[in-house]
């Protein structure tokens, strides 16, 4: 795709947890599997600027949620909203100023914390504390200058454990961990650029050595639009490698929706009204399992006509989704499992006759589409109401909205873009003066920049520039430095992080949960000759999948190193067995035979050793 001509615009908001201790109390930034005392609370909408409470919002909140907060052994009264906040964590402020300085931003003269109203229960107080630290910086990515508009310091929300009916359970361990929030200008014009920017900012953050590491410690929000489209926010992406996929898929989605808009405009489509028909009788003897099941559960099949929408619901010729999935995700918000639309019927056991009967019941013309939902009447009606609204919005084009990222690179509708945040001063926290002395000392003590680290790695550890660069981008640079520094074998360590880890990820095991201690065990055992480096991927897989220790995994896998005599014996046997093949191919037979030997001795012997012995044996046979 030619993203520049499509007018693709991407901005990123990065949230990075700090390891400095919590922002407004003296609790550690740790997670806990234990919890003891629980507190149950409700949150209530507060008065508006005019001193009034929105009665509708109030009823909504009453009908709805209460929140169960699990405290952990180190929770304190501040986290439980039972004590005023302490002074803002000085180290967290310094980390944000340091990061501002690394991106050439201008810090405010005095930091003022605000309360941002959030009543989904993720914060015990009903607001999140946040402060603007600096504005107006930039970073270079390749030869592109990307503007950094703001850097804020805020507190992380409580960790959501489960949602059941009208109760949401949160754990207080994550609440109050400082988060640096960095917002870029919408300067990225390709999916790859978005990834590079995220990588660069991530590397700068890690360079400060004041950030938490591991899954969930850094989260990205992506703001994406194409020209003629609309700003769509993908909230909470955690995997760097998926960023370009999200951007690309979103661009495709918006283009497809713009195409739908064009078609609808050409046909002169007007907003459809919510004219719901109960078509259950038409399906009394249906073969469609879904519809039959719904009727058996005392549900009804309700349908609406979408005038002039025929052909805009199913996927396009080249397989890009159009309105169907959009309507379905809105229907799911209303609590139904899904819908059927005319572009996918007949199908799913629905016959042509049933489709025609439905069309005539709805008085649908050939250019019209229809959507049906089978569920309890109230739910089905609510779903259809949302479907009609969403369909009507398609005539206007791409709606602004917030979407949730899925692990396969797609996204799904979650809610409309939030309105402007309601913020007012957090008067319980003292303002923090940022004077020249503070800034000067931060500037004098800036950390090693990622590119400086790359050069140093090349010089100190003898790895290639590409390897060093990838390490710094991967986020494993600290682990690499520690292990390569402590055990030598920099190449082995680099390969583990740069090759083995991505392979494990592809195979569906998550290497990022491996502790540094496991890696140390691996290298200690490798050095002691317990196994060959070829065994490392299998051992790591076993550690991850079975929870084994490195020793146990080595035993179970049977990858203990074998002595050279056994290696020679295997080589001799295979050379004998494949004598004809070797004679036909000559020295070129080394590769295939090598593969056979490796298969038998998998991970037990260094490949180099095998290849030397085998080469010698083949030569002997041929001469």
């Amino acid at each position, binding site marked *: 795709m030619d993203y520049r001509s499509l007018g693709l615009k991407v901005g990123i908001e990065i949230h990075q947890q700090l390891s400095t201790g919590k922002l407004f109390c003296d609790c550690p930034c740790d997670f806990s599997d234990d919890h003891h005392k629980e507190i149950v*609370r409700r949150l209530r909408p507060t008065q508006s600027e005019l001193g009034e409470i929105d009665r509708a919002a*109030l009823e909504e909140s009453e009908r709805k949620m209460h929140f169960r907060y699990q405290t952990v052994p180190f929770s304190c009264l501040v986290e439980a909203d039972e004590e005023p906040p302490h002074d803002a964590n000085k180290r967290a402020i310094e980390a944000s100023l340091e990061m501002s300085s690394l991106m050439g931003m201008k810090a405010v003269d005095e930091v*003022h914390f605000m309360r941002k109203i959030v009543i989904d229960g993720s914060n015990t107080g009903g607001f999140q504390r946040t402060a603007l630290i600096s504005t107006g910086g930039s970073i270079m990515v390749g030869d592109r200058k990307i503007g950094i508009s703001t850097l804020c310091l805020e507190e992380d929300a409580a960790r959501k454990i489960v949602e059941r009916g009208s109760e949401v359970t949160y754990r207080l361990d994550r609440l109050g961990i400082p988060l640096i929030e960095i917002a870029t200008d919408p300067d990225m014009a390709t999916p790859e650029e978005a990834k590079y920017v995220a990588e660069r900012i991530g590397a700068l953050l890690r360079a400060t050595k004041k950030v938490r590491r591991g899954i969930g410690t850094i989260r990205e929000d992506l703001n994406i639009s194409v020209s003629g489209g609309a700003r769509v926010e993908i909230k909470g992406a955690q995997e760097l490698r998926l960023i370009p996929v999200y951007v690309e898929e979103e661009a495709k989605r918006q283009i497809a929706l713009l195409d739908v808009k064009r078609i609808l405009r050409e046909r002169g489509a007007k907003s459809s009204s919510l004219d719901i028909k109960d078509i259950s009788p038409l399906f009394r003897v249906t073969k469609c399992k879904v519809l039959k099941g719904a009727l058996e559960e005392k549900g009804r099949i309700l349908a609406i006509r979408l005038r002039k929408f025929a052909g805009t619901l199913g996927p396009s010729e080249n397989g890009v989704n159009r309105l169907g999935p959009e309507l379905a995700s809105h229907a799911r918000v209303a609590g139904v499992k899904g819908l059927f639309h005319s572009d996918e019927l007949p199908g799913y056991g629905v016959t042509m006759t049933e489709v025609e009967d439905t069309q005539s019941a709805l008085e649908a013309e050939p250019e019209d589409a229809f959507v049906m939902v089978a569920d309890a009447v109230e739910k089905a009606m609510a779903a259809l109401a949302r479907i009609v609204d969403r369909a009507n919005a398609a005539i206007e084009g791409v709606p602004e909205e917030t979407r949730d990222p899925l692990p396969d690179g797609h996204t799904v509708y979650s809610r409309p873009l939030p309105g402007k945040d309601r913020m007012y*001063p957090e008067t319980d926290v003292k303002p923090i003066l940022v004077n020249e002395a503070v800034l000067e000392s931060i500037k004098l003590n800036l950390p090693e920049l990622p590119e400086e680290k790359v050069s140093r790695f090349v010089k100190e550890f003898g790895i290639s520039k590409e390897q060093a660069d990838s390490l710094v981008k991967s986020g494993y640079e600290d682990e690499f430095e520690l292990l390569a520094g402590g055990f030598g074998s920099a190449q082995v360590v680099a390969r583990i992080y740069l090759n083995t880890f991505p392979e494990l990820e592809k195979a569906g095991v998550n290497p990022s949960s491996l502790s540094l201690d496991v890696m140390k065990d691996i290298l200690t055992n490798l050095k002691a000759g317990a196994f060959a480096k070829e065994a490392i991927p299998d051992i790591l897989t076993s550690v991850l999948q079975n929870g084994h220790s490195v020793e146990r995994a080595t035993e179970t896998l049977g990858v203990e190193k074998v002595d050279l005599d056994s290696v020679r014996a295997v080589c001799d046997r295979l050379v004998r067995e494949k004598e004809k093949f070797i004679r036909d191919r000559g020295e070129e037979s080394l590769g295939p035979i090598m593969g056979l030997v490796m298969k038998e001795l998998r991970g037990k012997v260094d490949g180099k050793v095998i290849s030397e012995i085998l080469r010698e044996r083949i030569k002997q046979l041929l001469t």
Partner: protein
Amino acid sequence: MKYSGLVGEMLDRANAQLGDVIEVRRGNEVHVGILMPHHDFSSESIVTLKLPNGYNMGIRLDEKSKVKVESRREPKERKKQVLPHDPAKKDIAVISTGGTIASYVDYRTGAVHPAISAEELVFSVPELLDLANVRAKVLYSILSENMKVTHWQGLARAVAEELNSGAVGVIVPHGTDTMGFTSAALAFMLRNLTGPVICVGAQRSSDRPSSDAIMNLLAATRLCVDSDLGEVVVLMHGESSDSYTLAHRGTKVRKMHASRRDAFRSINSEPIAKIEGPQIEFISEHTGRSKGPVELKDKIDGRASMLHFYPGFEADHFDLIANHVKGVVIAGTGLGHVSEEILGSVTRAVDKGVHVYVTTQCLYGAVNLNVYSTGRDMVTAGAIPLGDMLPETAYVKLMWAMGQTDDPEEVRKLMLTNIAGEFTTRRFV
């Protein structure tokens, strides 16, 4: 909240008012935003602006900086609201005195201000109107630490007037710091109650979605409408969760935590009632509603003091205070003791006609001056033990008793009579 020094002068010269949109120039930096109030702990050279993105930032001004007003604050339109009256519902009265529960945040400037009108207070909890007709009145707008004995008198009069004119109960929104003093004062001043008088506070201000004010106010309303209670109580959260509230006897309650929602505790007694949703459960004996009318005994003599004894308390200090008051309540150590040195002061005070009463700073348990020689010496010196009465309650009661009579013997009789549940004789294990 006001700017001073250079910043104050520059803002004055530009005629900039809080809430105006102003432009600040310093060198080549330009910032535009709403002028916010000065935070007490903000540096003197800093002006605080609310930026269009909602954030506040502090900007340092120097001699060369320039300030100008871009646009004036738009005057806020306040709709005049009228409290509805439903003949099918009972009337309750809300007499506000101030404090966290009755304060509001101006979201535009962040300034906290007390409720201006009773209507404003009631409409912040519109659910109240589902339960009762509300007669609302803002009597005071003060922080509870600024309460004086004259405020208690004014409040007692207002409460009596409401009950005697048909309200089935009175809710008194109050700052929590001294709410226990006020509830004790009302308990002594108001007799023959025709309905509950409920002091209600909040530990989290009502600008927060997590405020405890609403639940406390609703429970108080229910207690007014749906119970036969005829006593002065303090009603607050029973635990940290928003699960239930407790009504504590006005003379037996004390704020026992600086910040928690469940800060208020009944001391040496059980709470009177537990209110959970619409459910009211009476936990201990209580006085029911009288047929009326409510009797007002609001005379009070403020010339008393409460002295907390500690190691190193000097006799000079005791004497100095005793010379300026008519009565002293001592919060003694343990069973109610003071040092030998203070024993001398007690003797001197009693000789001058000063009432000296003894309570325990342990709060839990009762004074007993028979066990140790110090105690016996105190009694000999003329100090009178007050059982398990809370020091604060004893202090309030002494002033009230001195207001009722000038006769020391009558004062003594009043002090030792259980008037509003201030004594319990049995403390359960």
